[in-house]
């Protein structure tokens, strides 16, 4: 079971690097959605005896992260003229190098962390850390509001992976609440993105620098 899970985690880490390298916003949303679907499959391969609760969490995650959230983001950017990240604050190559370096560092330091015996053979924790780092790089390094929203969601994906450590302990109500909150947050973010596009006629957050001392 750990073997299948590690395979999925490796794919998720690979998608992190793809998201750091791609400049087209549509591609970024697609990569993020794919990562969401892979995350949704993880609870299914973690346990031998398939519990209905795990199936429900998996279904909700695939539906939420893989379909609803990307749909909301695409709706938010339908009025945009450009669909490319043209001048990021942190360039594509530097952010890719940062992300790769961070992934290697996370894999190297996992043995330093005190983990339960059943989690030591898995790359769960390094994958979570690498994904959180990727989210931060996108959040800080990209100028377009949509890219930053994707960064926020990849950050949340990383936290979700970490949350899988608690899969058996976390009551399903809490899991559902978390997913609902994240979906609503994307809903509100997409409305604000839409407003930014309408008022500034651009998705570039460089316009959002009026308020300062």
């Amino acid at each position: 079971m750990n073997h299948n899970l590690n395979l999925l985690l490796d794919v998720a880490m690979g998608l992190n690097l793809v998201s750091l390298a791609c400049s087209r916003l549509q591609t970024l949303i697609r990569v993020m959605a794919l990562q969401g679907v892979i995350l949704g499959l993880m609870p299914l391969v973690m346990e031998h005896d398939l519990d209905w609760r795990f199936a429900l969490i998996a279904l909700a995650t695939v539906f939420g992260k893989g379909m609803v959230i990307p749909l909301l983001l695409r709706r938010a950017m339908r009025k945009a003229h450009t669909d490319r990240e043209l001048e990021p604050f942190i360039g594509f190559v530097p952010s890719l190098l940062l992300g790769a370096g961070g992934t290697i560092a996370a894999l190297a330091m996992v043995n330093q962390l005190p983990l339960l015996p059943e989690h030591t053979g898995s790359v769960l924790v390094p994958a979570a850390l690498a994904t959180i780092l990727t989210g931060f790089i996108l959040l800080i390094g990209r100028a377009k509001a949509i890219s930053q929203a994707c960064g926020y969601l990849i950050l949340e994906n990383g936290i979700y992976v970490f949350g899988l450590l608690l899969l058996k302990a976390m009551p399903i109500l809490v899991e559902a609440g978390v997913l609902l909150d994240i979906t609503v947050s994307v809903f509100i973010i997409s409305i604000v993105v839409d407003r930014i596009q309408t008022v500034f006629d651009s998705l570039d957050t460089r316009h959002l620098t009026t308020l300062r001392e």
Partner: protein
Amino acid sequence: MRSILLILMPIVGSVVAALWPSNRTRPALLPIIGILHSLLTLSLFFDPPNVVLEDWLGFDALARAVLPVVSLLYLICSFYGFTYLQVRDERPNRVFVTSMLAVVGMMSAGLQARHLGILWIATEAVTLAAGPMIHFNGNARSIEATWKYLVVGGTGIALSLLGTFCLGYASLHGGGDGNLTFVALMQQGAGLSHSWVFIAWVLLLVGYGTKLGLAPMHTWKPDAYGEAPAIVGAMLAGGVTTVAFTAILRVRAVVGAAGASAIADQCLLAIGLFSMLVAALFLLATRDYKRVLAYSSIEHMGILTVGAALGPAGVAAALFHVWSNSLTKGAMFMSAGNIRRAAGSASMDEVRGMVVRAPYSVAIFVAGMFAVTASPPFGPFFSELRIVRAGFAGGHGTAVAVFLGCLLLAFLGFTRVVFPIVDGRPSKIVKESGKRFVETAGIIIPPLLLLCLSLWLGLFTPTVLQDAWSAAVAQLFPKS
């Protein structure tokens, strides 16, 4: 049951507001829910229900110590909000009223949360529901403020989710079953895995500290408070921050039970004093009187955090300060909102002689300024005095010196901005909506009432409240 009703009633009100057809009558829902909510809170305060230990939500001693002030603040704000939305009837208010009632419901949930996961969900929901209210004016500045609020606040709240998971893993790793109720976590106490507790503490402090507006995670606060309508500022500064502060207190109790009190208190003291210092310095620099209130709020969150670091006596004083700060800050935000509308600008470069144009609001604003900068005999003076006393009793002489120095700087910063806008000859009238500004009872009585309550709290701190704060401290520091 009544404690659940406290959450459900505003949520139902929020749904009704979303469906209500008339823009003119919809704002009446704000005071209606305000009255019902505060009556229910009053009944819970004087007749507290039995809290089942394992319950995820409950009106426990800590909720009893802080929830009444949030309810009271909302009640008074709701009347101001009703008048404000009547005056601003050119703006659609469906989203505003719906969001405001949702915020009230979710705050009631956050303050009563006895489960780390539920606490997170409620805090996140409050954050999200407050977003559209900041955006009420719909102009470029308010969009910028909303975006920064959502990105910074969202990231902070994401880190607190990670911290929540880490605390759960601390329980699993220590041989527990990963039960995330505060009662269970405190019972496991020293059995929690130490390294994971430390990681969780840092993440949760940063996460909920962002909501609280502690420096250096405060960057969203001046923008949001500066651009949002007055009652939104008042509710964010007096209500939402209270949710984040009780979250930190509850987590701090778990870290304390795990035997890491000393480190937790050092973290709180350092970040609290740093916030006070940053806020004091920015108060000396800003030229916008609504942003002054935001920096003042950052300073007061620093004061609360310092109080939380000083053991049982400090926490009791901090709970007192939650009350005095919420009431006083509410009066300040509303009177500043009046001055802002009378003047047509929030910058001290353009506004002069407001004592002529809005005399009552200015009187409340100036009195509020003295109150909030801890002049006797208002509430904040006495609560801050107790924090200083707790500091001396705990042997934190240097920290108290820094604390008092920051208060002095903040006072200078406040007077630097407030007196120029109050005094002098009125500059030429900047008209915004073509309507002449009139100081009606609906926008003067609410801030005046809050100011009087702050005075009352300072002069006659009721014994029943003191007992409520002591009971909350007993819950947070068992056996001591």
